[in-house]
C-alpha cells in the first residue's frame, strides 16, 4: 500500500479519533493542571510503556496490560504519597522513571524484538482502524459522561481539599477516580500521540486557555477548542508535508500557546476581557 492510499483512507479515522482524544485530554488535563500535576499524564504514559513492554514479553495485547499497569501503579503511589507524605512531583518522577526502566528491561528480554513493535506506542500512529475508532469514541463518551456528572465534586476537591472534605465530599475517592480516568485517557491517547508526547495534549491547550478565560467553564470550552484545532490542523499538515502526525499536533498546540503569550504580553487581550465582552 502506498503512502497516498494509506493517507487517503486514514484521514477521516485519524480526524474522528483525534477530535475525541483531544476533547478528552483537555478535559482531564484541566483537573491535573489545576492540581499542579501537569506531568502526571507523562508519568502515567511512561508507566504504561512498562505495561506495553510487559504485554509484549508475556504475549498478551499490550494496551490493556498497559492500562492496568498505569492505573494500578498510579493508585498505589497515590496511597504511598498519602501515607508517607511524599510530594506530588516526587511521585511523578518515581512513576515516570520506574515505568521506563522496567519497560527497557522487559523489551530487552522479548525474543525477536524489533523496534517497530513499540514505535507506535512511543510516537503514536497515523493509522487508526475502524474498530479502534469505535472503541476510542465509546471510551471518550463514557469518560466525558463521568466527568460531566462528577465535575462539581472534582472541581471542589481541586479548589480546596480541606473545604471539600469539611463539606462531606469523598476527596480521596475523587482523586482515585481522576487517576483512573487519566490512566484510561492516556491509553486511548497513546495510539494518536504516543507515550513521549502525551502530556502536551494534557497541558498545552489548558495553559493557553487559562491565559484568556476567567471562569472554569470558559477555560474548559477554550481548552477543548484549542485541543481540537491543534489536532485537526496537526493531522492535516502532517499528511500534507509527510511529517510526524504526533509531532505536528504538539507543535501546533505549542504554537497556540506561544501565540497566546504574544497576544497577552502585547496587551491585545486582557485576562478577563475577551470573554467578558462576549457575555
Amino acid at each position, binding site marked *: 500500500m502506498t503512502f497516498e492510499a494509506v493517507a487517503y483512507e486514514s484521514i477521516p479515522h485519524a480526524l474522528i479519533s483525534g477530535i475525541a482524544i483531544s476533547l478528552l485530554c483537555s478535559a482531564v488535563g484541566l483537573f491535573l493542571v*489545576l492540581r499542579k500535576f501537569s506531568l502526571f499524564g507523562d508519568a502515567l504514559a511512561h508507566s504504561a510503556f512498562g505495561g506495553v513492554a510487559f504485554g509484549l514479553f508475556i504475549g498478551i495485547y499490550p494496551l490493556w496490560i498497559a492500562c492496568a499497569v498505569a492505573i494500578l501503579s498510579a493508585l498505589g503511589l497515590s496511597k504511598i504519597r498519602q501515607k508517607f507524605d511524599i510530594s506530588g512531583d516526587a511521585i511523578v518522577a518515581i512513576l515516570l522513571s520506574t515505568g521506563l526502566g522496567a519497560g527497557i528491561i522487559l523489551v530487552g528480554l522479548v525474543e525477536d524484538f524489533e523496534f517497530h513493535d513499540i514505535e507506535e506506542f512511543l510516537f503514536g500512529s497515523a493509522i487508526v482502524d475502524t474498530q479502534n475508532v469505535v472503541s476510542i469514541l465509546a471510551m471518550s463518551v463514557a469518560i466525558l459522561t463521568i466527568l460531566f456528572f462528577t465535575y*462539581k465534586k472534582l*472541581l*471542589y476537591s481541586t*479548589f*480546596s481539599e*480541606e*473545604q*471539600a*472534605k*469539611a*463539606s*462531606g465530599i469523598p476527596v480521596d475517592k475523587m482523586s482515585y477516580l481522576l487517576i483512573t480516568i487519566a490512566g484510561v485517557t492516556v491509553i486511548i491517547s497513546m495510539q494518536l500521540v504516543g507515550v513521549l508526547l502525551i502530556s502536551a495534549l494534557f497541558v498545552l491547550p489548558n495553559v493557553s*486557555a*487559562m491565559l484568556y*478565560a*476567567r*471562569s*472554569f*467553564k*470558559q*477555560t474548559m470550552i477554550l481548552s477543548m477548542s484549542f485541543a481540537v484545532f491543534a489536532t485537526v490542523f496537526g493531522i492535516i499538515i502532517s499528511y500534507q508535508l509527510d511529517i510526524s502526525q504526533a509531532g505536528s499536533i504538539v507543535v501546533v498546540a505549542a504554537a497556540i500557546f506561544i501565540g497566546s503569550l504574544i497576544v497577552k504580553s502585547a496587551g491585545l487581550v486582557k*485576562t*478577563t476581557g475577551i470573554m*467578558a465582552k462576549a*457575555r
Partner: protein
Amino acid sequence: MIVDIQKLSVDYSGIKALDDISFGIAEGDFLGIIGPNGAGKSTLFRCMLGLHTQYDGTIKFFDQDIRDSKKYLSQVGYVPQKPVVDRNFPATIREVLSMSQNSNDPKKVDEALQKVWMHELADRRIGDLSVGQQQRVFIAKALVNSPKILVLDEPVTGIDMYNQDLFFQILGELNTKEKISIIWASHDLDAVERVANKVACLNKTLFFHGVSKEFFSDDEMLKKYSETSMQMHMHHH
C-alpha cells in the same frame, strides 16, 4: 443542643493537643472560642468537621455521633482560617459557590452573595479579590446550603479593620436574623467581647465556658487567661 462534645481528647504522638474537653452549643449561640496559638482551637474544629478522626470522647451534631454519619456536614458551613486561593485558579465567585452547593438552584447562590454584599461581583474571578473580599465569599459559600451552624477558624487574620468590622456585622446579622448558630475561634479578646454572646476559653483544657459578659467581667478569669497565654507564648519560643 446543636453540638454536644463530651470528654474530647486528642493526642499527637504522645503530646496532648486537647485534654478532656466537654461543652455544648445551643441554638442561637454565638460562641467565641478564645485561646493562644497552639491552644488546640484548630484541632477542635478539625475533629468537629470530621477532618481528624483519631480522638477519644464523643462529638454529636444534632444528637447524632459524627462517627456514625457524615450527613451533618450538609448543615454545617465552614469558613477556614485563611483562604488559600491560587490567584490563577480559573473560577468565578458564582462558580466557587456552586461547587459546594447541594442543589442546582442559582437563586440560592445569589441569595447567599447578597447576605455578604458580594452579589455585584458574582462574575469576577475569585483570585482577583482582596483577602477580605475572599473571606466574605467563603461565608457566602458556607451559607449556600442554608446551614444551621457556621464554624469559623480565625477568619479575620490578615484582614484590614474595615473588612473586619464588615465581617462581624454580617456574622451578627446571620446570628440574630437568620438564627444561625456560630462557633468562631479567635485570639482577639476585644472582638470576641464585642460580638459573641458565649465564650469558651481553651488552652488544651477548657477552663471556662459560659456567658460572654461573665467572663469579661471576671478579673480573676481574665488574669488566668493572660497567664496561660503567656505560658504558651514562652513555651513556643
